[in-house]
């Protein structure tokens, strides 16, 4: 008996930088390979901003999975910010919305043609990320076999009318968190579409050593860890301010360790250590020894680094205004949230002073991850969703 077929559609695929939907898609495709004839349809882009054609168009193989890459006809347009402003204005037209989606890129009509023709020959089509052209225009071409992984957070774009079919037409939706589902149901009233909380599995290596990390980077004393792109849009500026104010007000000595690509200025001070991009080994070693992971971002659909911190048994400190990160942290009982710089300092003081409390919160996170975000559960849930799709279309 042959396996059912599955086409994965995502804007970029393969060896690309950064986190988010693309590595999510790749990890899921690999995990589903034993159960489906998996193929991927994507673009030739490597960069999520320019969408410049960097990969070769045509067929290739990644991790043993056939990948069809289609050329980007137009990347992000130079007037993108203008198009964005127009589409987000209160009195915008439908034409403004369409112009925004095209200006955002990657415009890849050949990819759509492929989804249109190939999409009706496979059993299921899994679309990653609601926001980009391949999903917005591709999902309506195969809605009866489409499963959407929206990776959505509350942002102006999701309120555009052009996204309604993306959320109302698919056969099923695989959300990352209950918070994401609640937001989508509130915005689209699409409770009718079958759905599950799926997300991703978290792999934490058994061999992780705080000592190795401290020695390699010469870090002493209690430290808090931030992992991810260092950008204003993830609230890194506020984090630096809050941390500096705490330390400057004669708080307990601590270090803020930053891992990730720097895209904004970082204050030059001894207690803020910028390590840049690091290996996975360094990341898990650092997680093992941190007082807590700090996740200041408000716009996350699923904070994988928070899941990984919990997987290592460490707590998470987040912004109370972040619906997803604080929602998950609160449900898991696996961390604390701040509303101000003063509260951030209080939390920092408390977790350093009471290591058992920090460990207890971290342990709660670990059991939350084991309950919800393991690969065996993720794969099982996808199998159920896809079986439902096939049953409907049989």
């Amino acid at each position, binding site marked *: 008996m042959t396996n059912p077929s599955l086409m994965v559609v995502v804007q970029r695929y393969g060896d690309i930088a950064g986190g988010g939907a693309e590595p999510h898609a790749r990890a899921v495709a690999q995990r589903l390979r034993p159960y489906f004839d998996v193929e991927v349809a994507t673009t030739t882009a490597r960069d999520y901003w320019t969408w410049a054609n960097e990969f070769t168009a045509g067929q290739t193989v990644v991790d043993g999975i056939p990948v069809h890459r289609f050329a980007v006809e137009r990347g992000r347009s130079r007037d993108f910010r203008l198009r964005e402003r127009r589409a987000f204005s209160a009195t915008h037209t*439908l034409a403004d919305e369409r112009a925004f989606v095209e200006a955002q890129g990657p415009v890849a009509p050949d990819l759509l043609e492929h989804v249109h023709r190939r999409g009706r020959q496979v059993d299921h089509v899994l679309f990653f990320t609601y926001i980009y052209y391949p999903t917005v225009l591709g*999902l*309506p*071409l*195969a*809605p009866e076999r489409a499963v959407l992984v929206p990776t959505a957070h509350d942002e102006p774009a999701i309120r555009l*009318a052009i996204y*309604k079919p993306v959320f109302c037409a698919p056969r099923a939706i695989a959300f990352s968190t209950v918070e994401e589902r609640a937001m989508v149901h509130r915005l689209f009233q699409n409770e009718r579409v079958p759905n599950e909380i799926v997300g991703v599995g978290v792999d934490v290596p058994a061999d992780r050593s705080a000592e190795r990390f401290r020695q390699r980077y010469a870090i002493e004393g209690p430290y808090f860890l931030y992992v991810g792109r260092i950008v204003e849009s993830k609230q890194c500026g506020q984090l630096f301010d809050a941390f500096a104010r705490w330390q400057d007000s004669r708080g307990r000595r601590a270090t803020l360790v930053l891992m990730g690509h720097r895209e904004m200025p970082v204050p030059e001070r001894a207690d803020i250590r910028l390590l840049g991009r690091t290996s996975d080994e360094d990341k898990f070693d650092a997680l093992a020894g941190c007082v807590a992971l700090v996740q200041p971002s408000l716009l996350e659909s699923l904070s994988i680094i928070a899941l990984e911190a919990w997987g290592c048994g460490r707590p998470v400190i987040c912004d109370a205004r972040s619906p997803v990160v604080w929602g998950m942290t609160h449900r898991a009982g696996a961390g604390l949230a701040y509303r101000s710089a003063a509260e951030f300092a209080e939390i920092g003081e408390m977790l350093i002073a009471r290591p058992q409390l920090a460990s207890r919160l971290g342990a709660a996170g670990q059991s939350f991850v084991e309950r919800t975000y393991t690969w065996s559960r993720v794969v099982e849930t996808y199998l159920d969703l896809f079986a439902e799709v096939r049953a409907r279309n049989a």
Partner: protein
Amino acid sequence: MSDILIVVQRFGDEVVGGSEGHARVVAARLARSHNVAIATTTAADYWTWAPFYPSGTSDLDGLRVHRFPVAEGRDPEFKAFESKVLSGEHTLADEDEWLRRQGPHCPELLDFLHWQGNDYDAVLFYTYIYEPTARGVPIVPERAALISTAHDEAPLRLAPYRALFQLPRAFGFLTPEERELVHRTFRNEHIPHETLGLGLDPPGAYDVAAFRSAHELVGPLVVYLGQVSEGKGCDELLAAWAASRDRPSARPATLVLAGTLRIEVPDRRDVIALGRIPDAEKYAALAAADALVLPSRFESLGIVLLEAWQVGTPVLVRADNPVTAGQVARSGGGLTYRDADGFGDALDRVIAARDAHGAAGRAWVERESSWDAFDARLAQLVALTAA
């Protein structure tokens, strides 16, 4: 009391058409208990979509009608382009282009839905095939009912309709056959639906004798009522009629064609073409008939069958038209025929059992097409749809 918007490609006294007529009836019935407004175009003609009505908001029978300008009517080269899209090499973009070239392309109507669609509790869209519906439902799917009036035709499989049939909050079908077609094609059985049919006013007074004498009609009559065209299967009807007359067992009868002539009618004594008859004569013509014949292959709802049954006249329809054959099977108000060879015998049999078929048809239409029954189905559709 809800605020209901009906979106339909044409609307007005000068508009003739099945789905537009249905929309008009539904608007009038719903307006008895809801605030009903119409969003439509300035067109009256379904082919050119040429501007006919002024754009803007007006009042028709107490309904607010918002008319939006047709930016582009039907492309003069539409037929050639369509044959490429339906049966030739073409791209995905061509399928979207086909929708636009079909017309009426009316972007202001769509922006109206975008800006003001949320003011309505339910938005009822008529006719899946035209752009106002195909592009309009995706703007307000959370409050949309799609009254698709679909039949089995090649465009139903084009790209612009794939998501359309997954989006509405509810479907209104005209017949069970349409419902089955849509479910089979799109596998969207999970979307709530109501099969609406149609409500009809009672026929009122009619005078059969006056009708016969006005048109000098004598003896048994077989009546066809509607546009006399190839599209309606009238060429095949005329051929079947001629073949059936040549049978030795044939009993004398006259085929009366009442409707606008679009094809040449053979010159024979037993075929009389009246051209279009006044509405006032409709029920007299139906009551004068020994049988009504409806030869069309495609029909979303055979309204003329319902009208024939109202006056107790049985009907004869094609067996391979699922909609009309289904209507006949459900009501018992007539018979079907497979081909020209079977036409004569079937006609004899339906006339021989005229009273029984006519009574069954009348009972069925009184039950199913009463205003009470129709209003109840309509109320159910609104309840399924309202956001």
